[in-house]
């Protein structure tokens, strides 16, 4: 039995049950000339979803059936899903959805070359440039171009290659150099050239760029590199926390400045009461820098990686703290309980949205442990209850709850988790390595994703809400929205704090590079899989119900990656799913317990969980933490049942009969 059997409920019960018994007879009764299509089943699917079936659609379906791989049942499942989601019945759309739904849709073996030019997050670019051990004049020029909005990848590649050529590097050779090679070559040449010759070359290089020769360029000096064994002073560093436009204030490398210069802004950012944050960052970085000691050999003396890591980690931690403080200041007046009921209801809604935003859209929960997230989820649940009280006319109870939340949120403090800060800093360190590595040394997709999964987890491997969202974003399922935001200059949400490129964009780059036909085919297949998932994650504009679908990567016991299929349907609350009336289905092929299906169904806030596997109740200990999360989300835990596939169902509390109502589409837990 394939894992996709767990998702076979996507095909209507008409198809999965009745037609299994009389399949051949039904096919013979096809009413159109497309005798090879199971027309009666197709017609019933269209009738069920109240979508008119015409010849144009039949032609598209025929094209899809002819060109796609898989069984008839698989293709009907794809058609059913397409209709359920309300997508256009076109061969291309069906093909995309089909690629996402199939078993093992995600090919983790596709090779990915991590492009050096994108290995630096946009928000880190200024710090990155300052940490380069190049003459100040060259760095000033780089910073000037960055200030004009020119992307880092262009600034670095074009400027450094330009200077390399004027300093005597062969043009073709300069074009083929990596970033690390360029920096090293420039540094060596500057150190070894006679001063007069160097001045002449640098002057010519600046003139060719159409800019005046900076005064410092007349006597270029290479900053003294920070000795590898130099102690790292974490707090305070000479930096300014990033503002909302994305790039922080001017960063000054301590190795190139006089002591004390430009330190005041960061010191101001660290309040006197913030020594705990500084201490946590210092503790976290101490271990990270030890683990990254080999970076010294890799980068030699071209880049001050310690300075870079301290700067970006400190900056992002301060920023997260500032974001949380801003959230508290925003919601404090909204949670004033004495306002009229209608205003109170509006304020509650705004606060719930602000809570969602602080959890999912800021970097607050990236640096904090699960307690912070659970406290925020609990506050959201309390406000939801308060809203219900208002709807029932019990304003006093609503006010009491709102007041309670106001106090709770007001008392919350931002405390970064050492584990999370370490993960952040280590990730940045690995990005540096990627940037300076020779070309064609990029990791496989599997390594890249596994590395990211290591980062997106808290203490004891717990994955929080933000981790789950960012895993999907890392796969590239939000790529277009974030590209559009970037183009519109909306960089408020700091999309690249924990990763600066996603799998989709690397695949797109891969498609344009010189790779063999087999790799092109693999990359195309993965893009189709991602596109299919995006089809099923578009926000519906009409109707009261919604559905979503994901292929979610999980780490397996042998270090490889598995694909967990997630199907979600239920009621919508505006454009967002209503978590109190939603069913989630998970299907994953584990190495230890084989195929496991998990259903988390919530109706009117009561959540029932079913876990189906060959092991039955033996899996119970592993799902204990799920109960806590369900309750933290403000849901009432009902039953939790463990069904043994192939054996009699076992239940921890009260076993539920298998649900077959319409919203589950006959989801089949039998493996």
């Amino acid at each position, binding site marked *: 039995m394939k894992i996709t059997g767990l998702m076979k409920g996507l095909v209507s019960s008409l198809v999965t049950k009745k037609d299994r018994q009389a399949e051949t007879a039904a096919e013979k009764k096809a009413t159109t000339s497309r005798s090879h299509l199971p027309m009666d089943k197709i017609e019933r699917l269209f009738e069920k979803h109240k979508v008119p079936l015409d010849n144009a659609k039949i032609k598209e379906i025929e094209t899809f059936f002819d060109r796609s791989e898989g069984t008839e049942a698989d293709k009907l499942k794809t058609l059913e899903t397409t209709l359920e989601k309300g997508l256009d019945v076109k061969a291309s759309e069906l093909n995309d959805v089909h690629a996402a739904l199939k078993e093992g849709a995600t090919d983790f073996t596709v090779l990915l070359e991590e492009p050096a030019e994108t290995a630096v997050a946009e928000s880190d670019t200024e710090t990155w440039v300052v940490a380069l051990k190049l003459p100040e004049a060259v760095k000033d020029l780089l910073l000037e171009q960055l200030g004009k909005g020119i992307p880092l990848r262009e600034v670095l590649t074009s400027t450094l290659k330009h200077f390399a050529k004027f300093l005597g590097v062969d043009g073709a050779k300069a074009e083929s150099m990596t970033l690390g090679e360029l920096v090293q070559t420039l540094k060596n040449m500057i150190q070894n050239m006679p001063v007069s010759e160097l001045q002449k070359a640098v002057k010519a290089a600046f003139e060719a760029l159409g800019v005046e020769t900076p005064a410092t360029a007349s006597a270029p000096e290479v900053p003294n590199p920070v000795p590898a064994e130099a102690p790292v002073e974490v707090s305070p560093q000479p930096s300014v926390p990033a503002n909302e436009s994305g790039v922080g204030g001017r960063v000054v490398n301590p190795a190139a400045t006089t002591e004390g210069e430009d330190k005041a802004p960061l010191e101001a950012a660290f309040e006197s009461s913030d020594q705990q944050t500084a201490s946590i960052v210092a503790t976290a970085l101490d271990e990270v820098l030890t683990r990254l000691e080999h970076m010294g050999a890799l980068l030699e003396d071209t880049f001050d990686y310690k300075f870079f890591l301290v700067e970006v980690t400190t900056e992002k931690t301060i920023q997260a703290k500032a974001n949380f403080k801003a959230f508290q200041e925003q919601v404090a007046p909204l949670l004033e309980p004495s306002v009229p009921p209608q205003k109170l209801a509006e304020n509650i809604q705004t606060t719930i949205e602000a809570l969602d935003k602080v959890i999912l859209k800021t970097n607050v929960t990236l640096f904090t442990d699960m307690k912070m997230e659970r406290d925020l989820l609990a506050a959201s649940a309390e406000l939801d209850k308060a809203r219900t009280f208002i709807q029932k006319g019990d304003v006093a109870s609503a006010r009491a709850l709102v007041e309670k939340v106001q106090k709770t949120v007001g008392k919350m403090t931002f405390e970064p988790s050492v584990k999370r800060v370490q993960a952040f800093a280590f990730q940045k360190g690995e990005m540096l390595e990627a940037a300076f590595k020779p070309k064609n040394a990029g990791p496989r997709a599997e390594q890249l994703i596994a590395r990211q999964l290591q980062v997106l987890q808290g203490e004891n491997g717990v994955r929080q809400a933000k981790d789950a969202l960012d895993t999907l974003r890392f796969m590239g399922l939000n790529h277009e929205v974030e590209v*559009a935001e970037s183009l519109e200059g909306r960089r408020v949400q700091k999309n690249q704090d924990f990763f600066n490129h996603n799998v989709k964009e690397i695949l797109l780059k891969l498609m344009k590079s010189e790779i063999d036909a087999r790799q092109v085919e693999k990359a195309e297949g993965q893009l189709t899989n991602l596109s299919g998932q995006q089809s099923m994650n578009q926000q519906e504009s009409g109707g009261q119900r919604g559905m979503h679908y994901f292929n979610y990567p999980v780490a397996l016991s042998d270090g490889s990656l598995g694909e967990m299929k997630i199907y979600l349907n239920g009621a919508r609350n505006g454009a967002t*799913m209503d978590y109190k009336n939603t069913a989630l289905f998970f299907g994953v092929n584990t190495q230890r317990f084989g195929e496991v299906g998990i259903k988390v169904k919530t109706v009117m806030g009561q959540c029932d969980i079913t876990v189906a596997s060959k092991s039955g109740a033996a899996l119970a200990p592993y799902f204990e933490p799920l109960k806590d999360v369900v309750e933290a989300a403000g849901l009432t835990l009902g039953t939790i049942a463990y069904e043994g596939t192939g054996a009699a169902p076992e239940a921890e509390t009260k076993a539920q009969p298998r649900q077959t109502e319409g919203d589950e589409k006959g989801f089949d837990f039998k493996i």
Partner: protein
Amino acid sequence: MKKTISTAYERYDNAADFNSYAAKVIEGAKAQKMPIEEDENRVAKGLKGDLREALPAQLYAIIGAVATCVEQMEGERSRKDESQQDL
């Protein structure tokens, strides 16, 4: 209260004309050398689904928790295998 997925969604929700916006996004991304699909339909559907707003934090919390449970199941095997190797 209707949520929006981006300024694009606000702007094009009524006209349902994501494709024209998609074309602009493709053009802008190319100019900035940002990787993007060239198929307007695919880009349009990507623009219609901002995952940060499609699901509330509670559902992502459940997804994250289930992923944790599955990985704990797998992780225990790893630890057991490692301890057996140590022996």
